[in-house]
């Protein structure tokens, strides 16, 4: 470890010379910008915890190092001096980066409003990432070993990620685009926009907000919200399971082109809207309507999808859209 230790110290002590310390952030804030390169030849996972601001992560082709730009801001030099960035490279293959504020002689991981630190982190694309913020946005792109992002009040943005994606958020909204792998999203308030997802499953849960998903090619698609709408646009795939539920909002499925054969279970406060869809064997079982859609041109042993659509206080709509129709909004 000695070689990398010396390299880290050298770069870290050089960094302040390159920093734009004392720069005015333009809104009366003092800004300090530092660049840190953490040697990480055997890094397998990078864990970033920054309750003081944003975390932006990018995967790169460069290997063997984690490159961090830390931008501190505070209303005074004294407050700025209390903001710290820590980084630790463990022999186990973990690199931990976290930010702290000095309070009462101790450094603590706490959120602030007036002062903060934003972290811009570049990691080798094949390293897994876990990042946590409090009020700051957190985003990850260009990664090939999955991402786990958590925030209380920031927005979550994920794009071009292979491997599993897991999020947890109180409020702020989530945007997930171009992911290959399992997707597990958890939010309380704020909308979710999902696009171009392929993998084992997509499981998105929200309490207060809408979920819109387009071009989801996973075998299990579960989109659940309590208030707000669910909209799924794309190809209904053979053998897939679509479980879409809102308690008060509408649930809408737009099949691009003729869907695969599916078994339908639907529950809504208003009659099911299924224009252009020849459903067979419709029958009521308790609060559920069950029916089947038999694809006109399906091969004999094509697998049947399962569509479970529920909106106890809202409406359920299924429609077929020709593939070359203009983009829906």
């Amino acid at each position, binding site marked *: *470890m000695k070689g*990398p*230790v010396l390299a*880290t*110290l050298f770069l*870290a*002590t050089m*960094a*302040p010379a390159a920093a734009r310390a004392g720069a005015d952030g333009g809104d009366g804030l003092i800004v300090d910008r*530092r660049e840190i390169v953490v040697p990480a030849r055997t890094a397998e996972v990078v864990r970033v915890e920054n309750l003081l601001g944003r975390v932006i992560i990018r995967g790169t082709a460069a290997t063997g190092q984690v490159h961090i730009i830390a931008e501190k801001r505070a209303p005074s030099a004294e407050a700025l001096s209390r903001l*710290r*960035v*820590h*980084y*630790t*490279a*463990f*022999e*186990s*293959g*973990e690199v*931990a980066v976290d930010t702290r504020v000095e309070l009462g002689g101790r450094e603590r991981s706490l959120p602030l409003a007036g002062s903060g630190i934003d972290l811009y982190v570049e990691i080798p694309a094949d390293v897994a990432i876990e990042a946590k913020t409090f009020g700051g946005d957190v985003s990850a792109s260009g990664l090939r070993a999955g991402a786990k992002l958590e925030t209380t009040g920031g927005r979550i943005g994920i794009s071009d990620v292979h491997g599993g994606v897991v999020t947890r958020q109180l409020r702020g909204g989530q945007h997930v685009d171009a992911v290959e792998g399992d997707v597990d999203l958890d939010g309380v308030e704020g909308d979710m926009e999902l696009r171009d997802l392929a993998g084992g*499953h997509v499981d998105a849960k929200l309490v207060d907000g809408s979920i819109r998903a387009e071009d989801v090619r996973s*075998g*299990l698609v579960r989109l659940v919200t309590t208030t707000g709408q669910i909209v799924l646009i794309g190809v209904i795939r*053979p*053998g*897939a*399971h679509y479980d879409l539920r809102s308690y008060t909002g509408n649930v809408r499925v737009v099949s691009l082109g003729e869907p695969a054969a599916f*078994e339908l279970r639907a529950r809504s406060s208003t009659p099911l809207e299924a224009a252009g869809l020849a459903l*067979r*064997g419709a*029958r009521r*079982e*308790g*609060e*559920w309507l*069950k029916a*089947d859609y*038999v694809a006109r041109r399906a091969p004999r*042993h*094509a*697998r*049947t*999808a*399962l569509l479970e659509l529920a909106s106890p206080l809202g409406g359920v709509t299924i429609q077929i859209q020709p593939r070359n129709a203009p983009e829906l909004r």
Partner: protein
Amino acid sequence: MLGVTAIDGLRLPPAQAKAKAKESSGDTVMTEAALIEAVRRGDAGSREALYHRYKRRVYALAVRIVGAMDAEEVAQEAFIRIFRGLPKFRGDAALSTWIYRLAVNAALSHRARRPPVPSEAAGDDIEGAPTEATLEGRTESPTGDSALRTRLEQALARLPAGYRTVVVLHDIEGLEHEEVAQILGCHVGTSKSQLHKARAKLRELLATVGITARALEEG
């Protein structure tokens, strides 16, 4: 296990860096014995490492025995029993067997204290699903992977708790009958006979919704 910690260029002595046990993965760093000792010593991060190693198995067991609504509470109770009992664990059984036993006991105790609520709603009543005869134009109801797994889970949920537990431990978790018998506190013969009856019942439940061997094989 300790690495370098740097704060804005200032190096701290290694003793102040966190020591963390690596989360279980394909090339596990810590053996079970080492992990048990680390937990007994109170090494930082060791309890969490043990939790991560077994969390999916314990939680899956809880979901399948008591249902999704109570699973987190039961899994929490199971882990509390595990950590409280670990100082007394003598290694008579494999750690995983012992953990499964505590998890199953926590789940069954929970069921005993809070028996299942009879549901009046149709819900996901697999037994109420249409038979082949009522599906117009259909001679077979092939269902693909995710939909099939859903049906299988639903059928599993409809098994009596005793049958369900044996199927979960043997066929899903892959334990041998000797281990299952140790966990359930019964004879190996009892474990086997319960399993065969459970499978027969499961097959019956799936057949009512047209899930056939072909669908199961293709799923």
